[in-house]
């Protein structure tokens, strides 16, 4: 119960704080940023990796003196959990809006991003999308939504064009393709995009196999692959099934000329390379990847690994998304949402570790964003295409 004396004391303290706002307030007010990811549920691993990236970025920004144009204001994260479903993501946006955040960074999965960007738009709340590859996210004319990384379509186009470049350079040993994909939106969508793109370059898609999550055994699919005997195998599935599939291929001694994943596979997963070094060897991916020529990426990787975590794409995607936002706030010279949106829209942010060049947003999409083609090479992941970022010469076709 509040006694009168207690009340008087509190009022006095409050009054003095109001009267002398600068006493003890030499520190500028921190800027609240919503960090929203699916850290529980089916997508928990990716969500937690994203959160790690965001927190490391905030740590770096604050250590380097905070937002300079605001007197060194620190960034304060308001962590949110989208629980691997869009509804929970919307609820978190509502909470973050109530708490007065200046902007939101998130929310990894396409389906969640679709919902959270729209919810944030109601409050003119800037929302930087860190991964979310579905192109609808930036195609709805939402003024508050900015995606730093490449979308679905761009990835599929680059993936097929890169594959063709690789194949042409090797004297076109590969003509036939088989796609093995998981049955949800991600796998089916990727498979459809690829199946549409590939024939244009003269490849024959021999067969498309769909499988459930979880699939407990891949021997049948492996046998089917053996029977069809495609030159290139394209898996589009999540980690567990991917790992089982690649292991089974090795057990069954099936060696296509290339195993090539789009948006997720061994050649963009240090975890897989570490756990299955033999099975991973030579696998090619087209995925979000950092600029290997930038020394800061190696330093960041080391720091992430020092925490016992893998330097997965989620980490550096969210890390750079947060950096992009901090740059915009600095130029906006204000924690005001509208000012930050304007600053993001006119962003030329180029002090980052991604192979995107200077940022340029058109309708909320960073047009310079692109995936890279990587290959597992001697127990490590190396960029092979495009040439500007190439670390090692591609090994293609693979020898059985």
């Amino acid at each position, binding site marked *: 119960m509040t006694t009168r004396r207690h009340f008087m004391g509190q009022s006095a303290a409050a009054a003095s704080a109001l009267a002398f706002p600068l006493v003890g307030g030499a520190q500028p007010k921190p800027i609240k940023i919503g960090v929203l990811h699916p850290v529980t549920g089916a997508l928990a691993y990716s969500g937690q990796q994203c959160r790690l990236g965001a927190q490391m970025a905030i740590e770096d920004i604050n250590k380097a003196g905070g937002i300079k144009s605001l007197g060194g204001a620190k960034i304060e994260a308001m962590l949110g959990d989208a629980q691997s479903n869009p509804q929970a993501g919307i609820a978190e946006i509502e909470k973050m809006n109530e708490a007065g955040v200046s902007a939101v960074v998130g929310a990894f999965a396409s389906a969640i991003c679709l919902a959270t960007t729209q919810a944030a738009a109601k409050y003119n709340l800037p929302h930087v999308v860190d991964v979310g590859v579905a192109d609808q996210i930036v195609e709805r004319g939402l003024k508050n939504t900015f995606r730093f990384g490449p979308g679905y379509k761009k990835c599929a186009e680059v993936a097929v064009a890169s594959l063709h470049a690789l194949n042409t350079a090797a004297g076109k040993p590969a003509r036939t393709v088989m796609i093995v994909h998981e049955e949800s939106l991600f796998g089916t969508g990727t498979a459809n995009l690829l199946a549409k793109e590939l024939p244009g370059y003269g490849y024959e898609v021999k067969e498309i196999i769909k499988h*459930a999550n979880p699939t*407990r055994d891949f021997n*049948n699919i492996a046998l089917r692959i*053996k029977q069809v005997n495609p030159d290139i195998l394209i898996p589009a599935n999540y980690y567990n099934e991917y790992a*089982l599939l690649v*292991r089974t291929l*090795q057990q069954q*001694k099936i060696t296509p000329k290339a195993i090539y994943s789009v948006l997720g596979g061994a050649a963009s997963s240090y975890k897989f390379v570490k756990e299955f070094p033999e099975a991973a060897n030579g696998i090619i991916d087209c995925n979000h990847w950092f600029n290997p020529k930038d020394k800061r990426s190696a330093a960041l990787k080391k720091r992430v690994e020092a925490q016992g975590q893998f330097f997965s794409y989620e980490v550096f995607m969210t890390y750079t998304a947060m950096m992009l936002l901090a740059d915009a706030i600095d130029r906006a010279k204000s924690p005001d949402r509208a000012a930050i949106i304007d600053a993001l829209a006119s962003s030329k942010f180029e002090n980052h570790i991604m192979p995107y060049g200077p940022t340029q947003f058109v309708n909320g999409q960073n047009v310079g964003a692109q995936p890279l083609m990587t290959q597992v090479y001697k127990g490590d992941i190396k960029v092979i295409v495009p040439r500007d970022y190439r670390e090692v010469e591609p090994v293609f076709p693979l020898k059985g």
Partner: protein
Amino acid sequence: MLDLNILFPSVLNGITTGAVYALIALGLTLIYGVLHIINFAHGAALMVALYGVYMLKEKLGVDPYLALPIMVPAMFVLGYALQRGIINRASHGKDENILLVTLGLSIVLENLALLFFKSDTRSIDTAYTLTTIEIGPAFIALPKLVAFAGALVVSAVLLLIVQKTDLGRAIRAVSKEKQGARLMGIDVDHVYAMCFGLGLASLGAAACFLLPAYYVNPQVGNGFVLVAFTIVVLGGMGSFAGALLGGLLIGVVESLGGLLLGESLGQVGIFVIFIVVLMFRPQGFFGAKA
């Protein structure tokens, strides 16, 4: 299409996969079939056992097969304690309560795993993980062959226990007539707990055979438990031979179904067989007539 070089490996693969299903179903048939306890926590218990094997390998470097003498007794003790300490107490002897208690247990166990291990999928790498044996035109992964042998041994051991020991006689007595068994001086609660312990112990063995070729995450049990229930009913409740045969059959049906109908549709074959068997032989392959 019906190329023997594809068909034969597919059948062989189905048999070895089915052996793993059978291993999991063996524990369930004991609990479900003999004691009529619907154990929803069976999948979660398998997950616990898999984490046990994983930790032994990662922290202490114990090979999964050498972990058998640790995991089997450990899971037995866990099963005994769970039945005696939690399930029995919370259910007050009512079957519908047991259903809810085991369901609750599975939720608790899964979330504990999520807390301690995160949702990350983990697997182990052993020298023989990728080793294959050539049988005719087929390559069979060595861990799957070992699991096949393991399933035969485990079902033989369970059969021996139930047929030849005093405990087995007590289990059979309790399953037939609980009240009568109690009047004969059998400690029914003890027999229930022993049974539950044995059921989980066979999961301990299953985990040791499964992990070298598979992975573990907090949800891993769910993928197996529905199949295991199907096998138990198919084979005849409480029948070990039935569970073994049912497991192998389901494995082969799944494998051939996947090959001929496509991977997603192939799963349907399991339930078509299930329905057909229930229509013409409702007691299952080896079940006694009700």
